């Protein structure tokens, strides 16, 4: 508890953002509601990624698979199962899927793990694509979903939940175990940390919220197509946000997501190509010059001013 209260600046920041998000539909209208929805979505996704990849050092390049599974669950049961059941169910199915694939997938480390997660996401994408083709449902329409404001409020709850989960994991015994795995997995096992169990739990926990996020985001669109909800760009963007923010703890995703959504809003309308170039430059710049991300930069600035 003491460790959580020590994070009051982070919690304050989260509450301010949530408040701003809740006020957006009333103050700034429909378009900015969608921008806020995007921001909340990226915070929730990047926090969930950090819970596993940031803490264990196992870099997942396939987190879109959980997002896609959640979306597919909601879409496939649309108008037959109420949304308050189907959206959480998307999270449960995504977490179950993570549990099933965790044991074989988590046996490999380093670049092999990165490629394997990417491969699993592509595999699931094409399996579902073929199922849809087989069913004669190459595309689905989703009219009558809740409006952007409702989706935003639920998404804010998910972003807070994901942030809370990551924060809690970081300060708990479980989180310290994960960090030990990141630093030296063999040593961690030697000192008695249940490595396999911790990794599997973290992997499943980091899949649940992306599953629900995917379900919600499917409802934002009136048209569902498999290739879009399993778009690998989602996975790449999550990793980029985590790197730019600083992927070690719950503060990074907040900064990373806010920075990139802000940059995108500033640039996409006027200079879409410049946006992609700048994104590449920022990514290279952060990896080379500021590997601890925005959080690291701000902390260093803080120490310099106080010194």
């Amino acid at each position, binding site marked *: 508890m003491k460790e959580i209260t020590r994070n009051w600046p982070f919690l304050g920041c989260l509450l301010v953002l949530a408040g701003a998000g809740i006020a957006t539909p009333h103050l700034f209208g429909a378009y900015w509601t969608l921008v806020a929805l995007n921001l909340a979505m990226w915070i929730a996704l990047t926090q969930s990624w950090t819970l596993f990849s940031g803490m264990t050092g196992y870099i997942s390049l396939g987190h879109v698979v959980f997002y896609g599974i959640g979306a597919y669950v909601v879409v496939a049961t649309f108008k037959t199962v109420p949304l308050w059941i189907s959206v959480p169910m998307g999270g449960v199915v995504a977490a179950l899927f993570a549990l099933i694939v965790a044991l074989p997938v988590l046996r490999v480390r380093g670049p092999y793990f990165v490629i394997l997660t990417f491969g699993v996401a592509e595999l699931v994408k094409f399996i579902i694509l073929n199922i849809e083709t087989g069913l004669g449902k*190459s595309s*689905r329409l989703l009219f009558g979903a809740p409006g952007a404001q409702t989706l935003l409020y639920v998404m804010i709850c998910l972003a807070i939940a994901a942030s809370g989960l990551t924060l809690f994991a970081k300060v708990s015994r479980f989180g310290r175990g994960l960090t030990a795995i990141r630093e030296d997995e063999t040593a961690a096992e030697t000192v008695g940390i249940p490595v396999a169990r911790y990794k599997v739990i973290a992997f499943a926990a980091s899949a649940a919220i992306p599953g629900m996020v995917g379900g919600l985001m499917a409802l934002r669109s009136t048209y569902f197509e498999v290739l879009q909800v399993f778009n690998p760009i989602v996975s790449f963007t999550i990793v980029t946000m985590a790197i730019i923010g600083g992927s070690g703890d719950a503060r990074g995703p907040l900064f990373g997501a806010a920075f990139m959504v802000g940059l995108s809003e500033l640039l996409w309308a006027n200079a879409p190509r410049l946006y992609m170039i700048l994104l590449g430059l920022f990514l290279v710049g952060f990896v080379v010059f500021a590997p601890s991300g925005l959080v690291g930069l701000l902390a260093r600035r803080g120490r310099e001013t106080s010194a």
Partner: protein
Amino acid sequence: MKYLLSLVTALALGVLAVAANAAEPVRIGYSIAKTGLFSQAAPSQITAYELWASQVNAAGGLDVAGEQRPVELVWYDDESDPAKAAQIYEKLISDDGVDLLLAPWGTPHHLNVAGVVESHGFPMVGNTAASVAIREVQPGNIWFPTSAIPDKIGTELAALAKSANVTSVAIIANVLPFAQENLQFLVPALEAQGIEVKVNESYPPDISDMTALLTRIKSSGVDGVIALSYPADSFLYMGQAKELGIDQPFQFLLVGPTIAAFQGAFGEVANGIVTLGHWSPHQAAWPKGKAFFDAYVEANGMAPDYLDSALAYMSCEILQQAVAVAGLDRDKLREAISSSTFDTINGPVRFEGVENVVTPTAFLQLQGGDMHLVWPAEAATSQYQPR
């Protein structure tokens, strides 16, 4: 003196009127895939929009229920992301306050934007979207001028194949939605015509080698090949079919051959290829078609895409004619689009629900470097010729 004074007054009023017009353009918004996966396909649509806008402005402006006003296009790049397109239309309507809307490129984008225009009651004439799913869209806010709807394509293509004396076919299909929808309706239609389907294979969207598929087709002994392909795989098919000596007299490619670059790339080799398309400048019954073709070639230095450019321009014509009657009032505009018959480069267009019920589902064939409508008979500009 009195005469001079009235002349000066008239001139002054004229200048004022021009100034007023210049100050108040009709702002027309759209999003387009300027970057990303579909950025190769979208230019055919952008060029048609730009041509239409420049023609309208050159003619003194858009007739808004009797008042001439210049048009100004307001567009954003949707990065080929349908969800982004929906967000942009929300911005165009809520933030930018545009007067009218044009459509984005592609079926997923149209159907995603359908939700936005419906929630605002803002009319939008679609163009480059074709799916049986469009009939699930609530009528009244969005309309689809295309006649290339997969269930109709299946029936008509089977009838064309039958009339071309095809007895057996090999089908290869992209797994993407438009191709699969076509496949779903085509196979039973072919069987109903007594045409045997000897090969029926689907392939991934990013296919880079068709050798195995084409070798199977070659050894299958069919007399027709139907490739339910997207532009990139149509190019791939044509190149590899030439290398492997695929010489079936009837060869159909779904999307791709209508692009000028396709004919540019393959020339004589592509002669005789049949493809999807319901417009041709050669149809004398549609006099506006030839004028559009000539103006497009003059402006862009190449032929328009017979499918996308034509549809995009038709959607502008429909909007223009509706605005001339109804002005910019959204309710009146919706009523006008829903109930009028429009005179377009593709002949008359009238909507029932969301669908164009006049233009027949048709097919084009590349003949001697030109594209001709060969099916159905009432729209044909030339006879079908076996390859």
